[in-house]
């Protein structure tokens, strides 16, 4: 992850670069971020946190995270991305009940009486939810008292502009400038 921190306080710039990296690693979002730009102006106060994601978060279905094979009346699943294993199980339990879903190993499942075409389209992650989680992680990295926040989300770039009291149009424009400089993928 490439982090660029700029601002008027040299100590804070160093500290926030490290803090941002640690928090993103803690919440498991560092891997999703390609680059980050942080602008710190505590004297205003104005804080701009902008991240460019490796990929734009999209809705994911079971077929994106597991290979599916119909065998007679039953369906076999082999999970390829373990991150989604709890959600895959949860969706299958919800649709077919626990009695009809057997977990043979950590990654192998059998759904008794399940149809491949039904299972492959079950949604296990929403892009909107993933964006919300990234915004939550950014809020966590920002100073706590800076409560007036404006979010800009476009393609794979998310930017948050934050100040303490009234947010002026100039501050929003400054945020938009940083947002554009991150290079939004169309």
């Amino acid at each position: 992850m490439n982090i660029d921190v700029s601002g008027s306080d040299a100590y804070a710039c160093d500290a926030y670069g490290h803090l941002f990296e640690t928090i993103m690693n803690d919440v498991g979002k560092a891997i999703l971020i390609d680059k980050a730009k942080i602008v710190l102006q505590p004297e205003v106060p104005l804080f701009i946190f902008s991240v460019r994601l490796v990929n734009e978060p999209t809705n994911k279905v079971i077929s994106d995270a597991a290979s599916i094979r119909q065998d007679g009346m039953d369906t076999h699943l082999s999970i390829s991305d373990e991150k989604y294993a709890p959600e895959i199980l949860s969706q299958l339990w919800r649709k077919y009940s626990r009695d009809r879903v057997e977990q043979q190993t950590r990654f192998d499942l059998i759904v008794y009486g399940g149809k491949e075409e039904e299972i492959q389209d079950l949604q296990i992650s929403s892009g909107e939810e993933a964006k919300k989680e990234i915004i939550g992680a950014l809020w966590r990295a920002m100073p706590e008292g800076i409560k007036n926040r404006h979010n800009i989300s476009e393609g794979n770039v998310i930017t948050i502009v934050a100040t303490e009291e009234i947010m002026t149009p100039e501050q929003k424009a400054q945020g938009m400038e940083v947002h554009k400089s991150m290079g939004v993928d169309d």
Partner: protein
Amino acid sequence: MFEVMMYDGGVYRSEELFEAIEDVGGVVLQKTRSSQLLSVTMSIPGEDKEYLSKVCKDVGGEVKNVPLAGTEIAVVGCTLGRHHMPHPICDIAEEIREYGGISVVMGLARGRGKATSQISAKERAIIEEYDAAVFMLGNFKHCVEHKKHLFDEIGVPVILVCGPEPEGLEDDCEAIVAGVGRKAERMRSSDERKKLEQIGDTIDSVIRARRKMLEEDPLFVHPAELKQLLENYEPIDMSLRPAPIVLHLDGLRVKIPYNEHKEYFDNLEVYGRKLTDIARITESKINDSSTIIRIKTKSEVEDEDRRKKA
């Protein structure tokens, strides 16, 4: 001047140690026994430190330096939110405990932000119950300097811990330790451990200065002596709270409600006087389950005696 030290060793021959403490006119502040192990925190005259260290070694134990023993110190953060807690506030609180003090972690209700940060009169009163307060602020120099109103009117010594070196705050707090700002992980590296030691040493020097100041006009009775009297009171003796009596530099925190035990406190006899004559007793500002006793100085008691006679 009285000094505090800790014996750490076995129970075997510990009676000899207790006799030696009594002989030199010292007092036991805290005694913790776990199976055959014993640790004793004692307050003894400075000139007898060498003698008691020898006794400790003779009975098979070792001596530890606990400069903050007999104090209760608050570590205050801007809020209890995850931006300010638990690191590094809990690391500082732990360091204080390693130095022998009792530490309490506290978060302000509205301490976050630059222009919107506030401290209430009640929060200030609660902090003033402690012997000193460590205020933990963040990484922005501008914000740290701007937030001095959080601690500049607090009546107990304040040690400010923050990231950058602030300017113009020297008169608003007792000491400043820079280099520890907001953190998202524990202070584990050797540089960070050194910084924690620096904070511990700074608190120690502030407490020493306060002790010296108290010695210029000594208290009517040492808090440890009063503790020995209070320990015999059944509700305190039977209390299940971890430390039913906590020593302060100028008094004690007794963890039983003042309202329920007012009669006992008011009539307790200390050197032929009622406790109310030689101390100010109030209920704690945190809640009514604790009682704060602040012992008056000898000159204060004498002055009141003179006024009564006149």
